[in-house]
């Protein structure tokens, strides 16, 4: 059996939402110094919803697939809903990850949460900030 599920391979070979957002509302970085994976998430927020989510990732196939899956799961969700995305729900959506990669490469949810926290920590001009 291949080490990665079809779902992981799909997200690795055709990652969704790769890139950066210009003037993002929040940025979150997560990295694992042991295995070296690094993920940066960018979010655009409108009416308390994640209007856009993009990412850049340095890492293995699992790390890239995780980032892609997180971005897909998060897009369109309210911030509260998006905060409920966990490494476990991501792994489930990907039809599983190899055991040794469950913790190491599975940092996408944390990176997204950091981006949301970054957004929340910024002073707001108002509910509609003119975008």
């Amino acid at each position, binding site marked *: 059996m291949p080490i990665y599920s079809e779902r992981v391979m799909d997200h*690795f*070979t055709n990652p969704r939402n790769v890139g950066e957002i210009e003037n993002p509302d929040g940025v979150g*970085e997560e990295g694992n110094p042991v295995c*070296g994976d690094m993920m940066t998430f960018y979010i655009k927020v409108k009416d308390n919803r994640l209007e856009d989510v993009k990412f*850049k990732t340095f890492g*293995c196939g699992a790390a890239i697939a995780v980032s892609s899956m997180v971005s897909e799961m998060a897009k369109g969700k309210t911030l509260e809903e998006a905060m409920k995305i966990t490494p476990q729900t991501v792994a489930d959506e990907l039809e599983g990850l190899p055991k040794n990669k469950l913790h190491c490469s599975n940092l996408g949810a944390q990176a997204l949460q950091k981006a949301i926290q970054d957004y929340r920590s910024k002073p707001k001009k108002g509910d509609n900030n003119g975008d």
Partner: protein
Amino acid sequence: MRKVYMDNAAAMPLHPEVTEAMLPYLGDVFGNPSSLHDWGDGAREAVEAAHGQVARLIGGNADEVIFTGSGTESNNLAVKGLALAQQKKGKHVVVSAIEHFSVLHSARTLAKWGFEVSEVPVDRHGVVDPDDVRSVLRDDTVLVSIMHANGEVGSIQPIAEISKVLRERGVLFHTDAVATTGTIPVEVGELGVDALSLAPNQFYGPKGVGALWLRKGVRLIPLIDGGIQEGGRRAGTENVPAIAGLGKASELAGIHMTERMNHLTRLRNRMLTELPQKVDHVIITGHPENRLPGHASFCVRFVEGEAMLMLLNSRGIAVSSGSACTSRALKASHVLIAMGLSHEIAQGSILFTLATDNTGQDVDYVLEAMPPAVDRLRQMSPLYDKYLKTGKGDR
């Protein structure tokens, strides 16, 4: 889709003549070499013949060859077995920092058993300096184990020079020659070693068998107790088909070595020269010239090795990597780190190991497939971003 296999250090196909040489022992000639009847005779003759074939390849004597279950077992047997046999004389053992885990972890086990272990460093090309070996020797040093060539970065070590240092001091010298035997000339007399590990799965022979050449008169404590196979130094009924395959592979390696080396060196040099021209920010790992003939290894900056490996696999190309993500332990290659590369650079490790089946067209195909694979990963790499924005790539 075109298929290009360049992961021959991991596994390589059997030479058809090797397969043929093994077949009788998977069939009618199934006897136990220890049996005294006709069935035993056939199997015993095969094992005896293979002793001779291996000995001829490395310039040793047939009765100095001990068959084992793998290169790993040969290394375990040499490091532990030689150290244990001399522990009354001393308990200090020396290895290099880039040894295969079968040597490094054997040394670690010796440390648990009360030995002291010194590791000698390597330079940025992954080469041991004989003076560094000299400087760690002590009065109680009983064994030095340094590999002939490293399978991850291909660098060939100055074994003959190191052995001169050790002979002056009367210290036993083992070399792990799994990456070199059958691939480049290996002659135990010229190398000046006392023990040498080899395995035929590196030269078109089968897996599940290896050998340790041990100079006549050198004492060794066996690791596996049982019958008196292999002169009492390795118990267990012989894996006759694999041993017959090892014998045939050794014979063929001796006959075809020069032509194989010329072919592989030509292809490898193209990889080493042309890949850095096609992809920027690529570092050659290991010695640029003094390296294994079919071995081309690199670190590609700002991308991770496993991801490259998988993209190449989707183009029908098999390679390997020493990145942390590729290893089951999720640790970067100790070899790359010992050569002074940062963890981040080591993450971009990619390794092409070629065999005689590979052609110039294979090299063309790989050189074409690499730039788009790397570009794709760099486009999503935050490290590449950082480099483009700041001009700084190093942490």
